[in-house]
Structure formats: structure tokens, C-alpha cells
């Protein structure tokens, strides 16, 4: 079910401001691709164009093409709602629905898709929570509110919610930046397990994290203040961190700027 993402000539705008310019890249299925780069370089914006979440911001629009296998996500007849069902997303801050129980949070996506049968929901909830390494911690309190969990548990709950609908791609926007080191480790381990089934794209400010979890790393940068962000290079992670082909990448990962 994991699919390949093929982006070509993609630019994204907020109103008249161009946030990212002319990005093309291929993201392989069943791999983890990390986006790194200084703040404001457009990596989160780019991530959000991959499931058409960019355009929910008033005035925001996208030019270019994103192919998921052989379907253009920005094709004329493509429903953004359908795109978001096949490309899941985990956000920077854990955002379980505060009014829902743990169970209902995980089942939320399925219920939106019209699944009503309790036995099906039960099965998916358990499978997803197990997939998110959270089952053992919450199996006795599935009907308690999701907001009552710790930050790290909440983020794994959000991952469970995202994978419950069996997306083809999982996007993660700095999923560990609000978590303590132990919870971060738990989520990173989880990413390692999930990549056998999903195409995973993760934005991170933490370069050690990129080095630890990803197979491929893309470095984004912007030419200056007010300039749109660009993809500088995308390569195998070990190569980016040992012998990048662009000087700016090396400057960034060695801490000379950013």
C-alpha cells in the first residue's frame, strides 16, 4: 500500500508571497525521507502540499504536480478530502481530539469514512494502537479522554489515529519537537517499524534525528530573507551527513549556520 511520491516543479504561495519555489523530488515507498533546513525555509509548507493541507489556509495555493504513483494529487478532478485519506499526517504538537476518548480518537478517521460496525472498529483500534506501540499502556482505559495521556503518549495516539485509516503515505511535521527525549526515542523506534509498510516523510529540526531515522535526507534552504525556500539537495542520509555534494549543506549540518 505504500506509494511513491514524485514531485515536479512545485511552488506554494501564501497570498502573493511565494513560500517555496520549483521543487522537484522523488520519494521512494517504504522508506523514511527527512526534510532538514533552517526555520522558514519552507519544509513544513512543502510537506503540507503533499496532502493538500497547504490550501486550507485562506489565500494559500499551489502550482506544480505531485504524483502519488500515477495519480496527480493536484489533478482537476481530484478531491482534496480523498487525498488526505490516503496521505496521513502527524503534527508538531500532539492534537488528539480533546472531546473524544482514546478509542474514539483512533476510530475517528474510520467513522468519517463511514465504517460503523463495532467489531471492525474494535479490531482496527487495537491494531492501530499496537502499531503505534501504545496498546499496552492504554488498553485498560480506552474510554478515558485522549487528552489525559502524557505528551509522548498523545503523539503516539495521533500516529495511531493516522495509521488507522491505512494511508499510503505518512507525513510527520516535527513530530518530536514537543516531546521529551524518552518519548522522542519511542516515536523514533516507531517510525523505524512503520517504514516497512508506509512511505514516511518527516520534517525535523534535529539533525541527529534525521541521521537516526531516515534513509534519505533532503536539505532545504532559502537564498535570503523574503526569498522563497528551495530544495538544495536530496541524497542518501549517510552521504548527506558525511559527504554532501553542496557546500551549503555541509555548512548547515556542521553548524556553521542555521
Amino acid at each position, binding site marked *: 500500500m505504500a506509494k511513491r511520491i514524485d514531485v515536479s516543479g512545485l511552488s506554494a504561495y501564501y497570498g502573493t508571497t511565494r513560500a517555496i519555489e520549483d521543487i522537484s523530488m522523488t520519494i521512494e515507498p517504504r522508506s523514511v525521507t527527512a526534510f532538514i533546513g533552517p526555520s522558514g525555509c519552507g519544509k513544513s509548507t512543502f510537506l503540507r502540499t503533499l496532502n493538500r493541507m497547504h490550501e486550507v489556509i485562506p489565500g494559500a495555493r499551489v502550482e506544480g504536480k505531485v504524483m502519488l504513483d500515477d495519480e496527480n494529487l493536484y489533478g482537476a478532478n481530484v478531491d482534496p478530502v480523498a487525498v488526505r*485519506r490516503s496521505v*496521513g499526517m502527524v503534527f508538531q504538537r500532539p492534537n488528539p*481530539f480533546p*472531546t473524544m476518548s482514546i478509542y474514539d480518537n483512533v476510530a475517528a478517521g474510520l467513522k468519517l469514512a463511514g465504517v460503523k460496525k463495532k467489531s471492525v472498529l474494535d479490531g482496527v483500534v487495537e491494531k492501530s494502537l499496537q502499531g503505534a506501540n501504545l496498546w499496552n499502556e492504554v488498553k485498560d482505559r480506552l474510554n478515558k479522554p485522549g487528552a*489525559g495521556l502524557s505528551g509522548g503518549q498523545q503523539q503516539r495516539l495521533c500516529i495511531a489515529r493516522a495509521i488507522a485509516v491505512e494511508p499510503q503515505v505518512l507525513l510527520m511535521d516535527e513530530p518530536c519537537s514537543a516531546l521529551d527525549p524518552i518519548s522522542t526515542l519511542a516515536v523514533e523506534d516507531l517510525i523505524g517499524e512503520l517504514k516497512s509498510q508506509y512511505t514516511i516523510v518527516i520534517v525535523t529540526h534535529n539533525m541527529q534525528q534525521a541521521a537516526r531515522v531516515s534513509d534519505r535526507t533532503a536539505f532545504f534552504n532559502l537564498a535570503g530573507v523574503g526569498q522563497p525556500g528551495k530544495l538544495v539537495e536530496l541524497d542518501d542520509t549517510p552521504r548527506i551527513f558525511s559527504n554532501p555534494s553542496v557546500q551549503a549543506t555541509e555548512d548547515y549540518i556542521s553548524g556553521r549556520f542555521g
Partner: protein
Amino acid sequence: MTSSPPATSAGRDRRPRRDSRVGDKIFFNLSRGSGILLLVIMAAIAGFLAYRSGLALSKDEGNFLTTFEWTPDAPKPVFGIAVLAFGTVISALVAMAIAVPVAIGVALFISHYAPRRIAQPFAYLVDLLAAVPSIVYGLWGALYLVPHINGLTAWMDQYLGWTYVFKTTMPGATPRNLFTVGILLAIMVLPIITAVTREVFRQVPRMHEEAALALGATRWEMIRTAVLPFGRPGIISASMLGLGRALGETIAVATVLSANNVLSLHILDPGGGTFAQNIALKFGEALPFGRDALMASGLVLFVITLLVNGAARLIIARRKEYSA
């Protein structure tokens, strides 16, 4: 040398602290004073009502709770709240049944559907509705709504008559009934409910809305999964505010309703009464004892409002752990 730096820093520390302590004291006492004042006023009103009611109730020859008539100044004083309580509750229920869904819709339109440049003036317009004096609503109700609503009531009689509630036994009578009052009250409470729910909907964290959208929710599904549950306590509180106004509305009801002491579940039949309307209507001509009797009915309205608010608090508290 060694002692001077701590001394200066201590001196520096002390001065702003002393200043702020004075400010703290003033504001502490001010806010505590306001709180106490509120309790004193509430106690004074309740005490006054209870005292005067007591005077009247001890001489009531009928059953205060079940009597339909209101003749406290007769040689043999008989008065009861049955008709008033029924009319008050029914007209307020009709008002809430109409106003709450419409208010939620308007609030959602302003907070989530309308483009910003339309939403702002539109919200202002709704707020403006709240500034119209109730006598104006009353006059509009009597002069426009009553003569024009016959079509609707006839339709309801014909197609919804089987519900008993919407059956009319006096077809063609001027519709100065509890249903018309309910519609009028609905319009009057709409702005306050809309204003409060709108603010609550605006406060729904963006990240919860995005969570729903990212799961593949349409806009309406996003509102159902993220916005409405989050706004639920606010919707209840807003409805309580509106209900308070609907229960206590006086002059608009008095202008529209043709009051009598008939208690009928046919809410399209003219007649009935409400607490506030009855007080407004009878106070002028009442003798001192009759006024005490009216106070007693006011006390009942006070208690009903208290009970309804208490029930709403319970509903909100029951789901407390699920509120953000």
C-alpha cells in the same frame, strides 16, 4: 563594599514591590467587594421576594401551585401559578427550539463559512439585533407577526395537528397564542446565543480543526468532529443566557399574548400567560395584597431559572474531563 551591593539590590527590590502591594490590595478589595455586593443584592432580592410572598401565600384560599385563577384581590383571595408556569415554560421552549439551531447555524456561518469581509459586518448586524428594545419587538409582533402568521398556523394545524400540540380548537382565531410568543422570543434571544456561540467557535484551536481535515474530513465533518464538540459547553451556556431572557421577557409577551387563565396544550389556541407578562399586566391595578401575590409568582420564576441553570451546570460538569 561587600555589604553595599546586596543593600542596593534589596532596596531596588523593595520599592516596586511595595508599590505593587498597594495596587494588589486595592484590586483585591475591589474585586472582593464586588463579589460581596453581588451576594448581598441577590440575598436582598430573594429575601424581599420570600418575605412578601410569605405574606400573600398564607392567605391564599386556593392551591398556589395548581390553581388556574389569579384573583388575589377578591374578597376570598384565590390565586395560583399553574397557567403562568406552563405558559412561561412552553413559550420559552418554543423559543429555544427555534433559536438554538438557527443561532448555531449563524455562528458557524460567521466563524467558519463566510469570507472575512462578509463575516465581520454580518456579526455586527446580529449584535445590533440585541440592541432593539423589547417593546419594539412587541409592537412588531402585535402589528406584523400576528396578522401574518395565520397561514403558518393553519398549515401546522392541518399537517401537524395529529401531534395534539399543534391542533387548534379555534381555527381562524387571532393567533395571539403561546406559539407566536415563542417565535417572537426566539428572534429576541437569537443575538445573544449567536454572539456567545460564535466566540466559542472562534476559539476552537486551529490544530484540532487541522487534525480533522488531515484525516480526510470535509468541512462539515470537520465542524462535527472538532468544532461542535469543543463548543458544546459554550452552546449550553449561551442557550442558558437566552433561556433566561426568554423566561423573563415581559413587555413583548404582554403586547402579543391575549392572556387568560386557560391551561391548554394546544399551543396554537389563543390564551395562556407567563409570569412576567402577568406581573406587568396586573401590577398597576393590584392592591397591596395583590402585589404581594405577584411577588410570589416572581419568586417562582426566580426558582425556575435557578433550577434550569443548575441543570445546565450539571450537564457541563458531567463531561468536564472531556473539555479542552
